[in-house]
């Protein structure tokens, strides 16, 4: 099935997920068009992280369907490798490989997974590290970098695989307030260049400025969604209003 740019690049339809007896996602549907920036917000335990992890196949689903560029993610015949080339993910912490330098971290996947040529990969890796503003840190180990720097290297590493969609799972939640900004600036630049980004985040200011669409989840369902302009000011559902009232 060929996918064209007028169709959603990521599409979730009535997705259900349970961990044993506990149902975490109770029928979630959303569509993301190419180039859009989506922010998913909500209280803890609402299923946001689980949702985003289902998109790149880290968690399996018990009902519904998820498609990325027209390809069903939870198809048993799917080559997970192909999917992971299209979808990159950055986690909250413990992203990088501590025993490799920043440059080696960024180079590892294209070299070993895509089996590309070494000098080519190195040039691209250095360019990516420069792009996330970490020039000079190529030979530092993750343990020698601050949290914000580690996350930026993690973003560069995912970008090295040339994905079409980037997923961010609360990437700034474990950082000191001073370092949060540097990461957000990087993500914003990515978004402005046209990368499709799906973020789970608590950073409301960021969401308001950068997102094209905001989804609010609570207890496994999407309660409300809308563009930031209307979402923050005209939220109609009482749960949304309660949540926004607490954090804004």
């Amino acid at each position: 099935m060929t996918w064209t740019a007028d169709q959603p690049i990521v599409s979730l339809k009535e997705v259900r997920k349970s961990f044993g007896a506990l149902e975490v996602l109770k029928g979630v549907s959303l569509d993301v068009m190419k180039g859009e920036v989506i922010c998913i917000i909500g209280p803890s335990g609402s299923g946001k992280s689980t949702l985003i992890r289902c998109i790149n196949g880290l968690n399996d689903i018990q009902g519904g369907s998820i498609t990325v560029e027209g390809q069903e993610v939870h198809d048993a015949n799917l080559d997970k490798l192909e999917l992971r080339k299209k979808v990159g993910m950055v986690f909250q912490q413990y992203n990088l490989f501590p025993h490799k330098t920043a440059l080696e971290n960024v180079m590892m996947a294209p070299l070993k997974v895509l089996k590309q040529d070494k000098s080519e990969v190195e040039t691209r890796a250095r360019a990516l590290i420069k792009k996330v503003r970490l020039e000079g840190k190529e030979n530092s180990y993750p343990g020698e970098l601050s949290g914000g720097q580690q996350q930026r290297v993690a973003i560069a590493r995912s970008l090295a695989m040339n994905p079409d969609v980037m997923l961010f799972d609360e990437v700034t939640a474990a950082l000191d307030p001073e370092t949060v900004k540097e990461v957000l600036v990087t993500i914003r630049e990515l978004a402005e260049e046209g990368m499709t980004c799906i973020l789970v985040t608590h950073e409301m200011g960021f969401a308001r400025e950068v997102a094209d669409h905001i989804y609010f989840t609570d207890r496994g369902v999407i309660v409300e969604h809308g563009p930031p302009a209307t979402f923050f000011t005209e939220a109609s559902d009482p749960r949304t209003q309660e949540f926004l009232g607490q954090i804004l």
Partner: protein
Amino acid sequence: MEDFFRELAADAPRWNFIWMYEERQQNKILSGLWMTIKLSVMCLIFSVLIGLVGAWMQGAKSAITRAIVQGYIQFFRNTPPMVQLLFFYFALGQFTPVVAGDDGWTVEPIISNVGWAIISLSFFAGAFNVEIFRAGIEAVPESTVEASESLGFSRLQTYIYVVLPLAFRVCLPALNNNLVNLVKTTTQAFAIAVPELLYHSVTIWNDYPSAQYPTMLLLFVAYVGLVAILVFGMSRWERGMKIPGYGT
């Protein structure tokens, strides 16, 4: 120098450093030392292999495999190594097939007492190694493994390039403790007449009671020295393998 020790033996009857000047005794000491080193090295290699296999089997799907490994390993971890040696050599040794010796007349069992010592001590040390390797593997954060998978590495690639290098560095100090303990435990092979350092020392001072004190001193120095060299070498290696920014 040899004359000095001969004179000393004549002047101080209890301090006969006989192995300093007499070649036969010297050879005994050296062969004993060599045997101790040989035992330690062989047991180290086999115990590491056993540890790796055991740790892998502990992650197996079948509950029976896991239970067998668990029971088997626990037995070796928690019974006295000397009794294990006796058990292996006497109780199990009687079942081994016999082959004709070099002279075509005597029969000897296919596994000598040195062989049984290596087997028994390897299983003893290997039992601890399984725990150590398993704990090392578990010390690698989930996120790092997931990040690796999200980049497209297969499970095997993740294991080889990410999990094992990290687990190894993490459990190296505990492995070193185990090795030191192993060297000390090789003395118990005395119980099955393995000609290691202690055994030869005992024969020397049985033959030459005047050499008792010097030989005991030698034993002390030799073992403490061996352990000290090991510890020194191992901490150099640990420092070289250290992950920058991890731990104190």
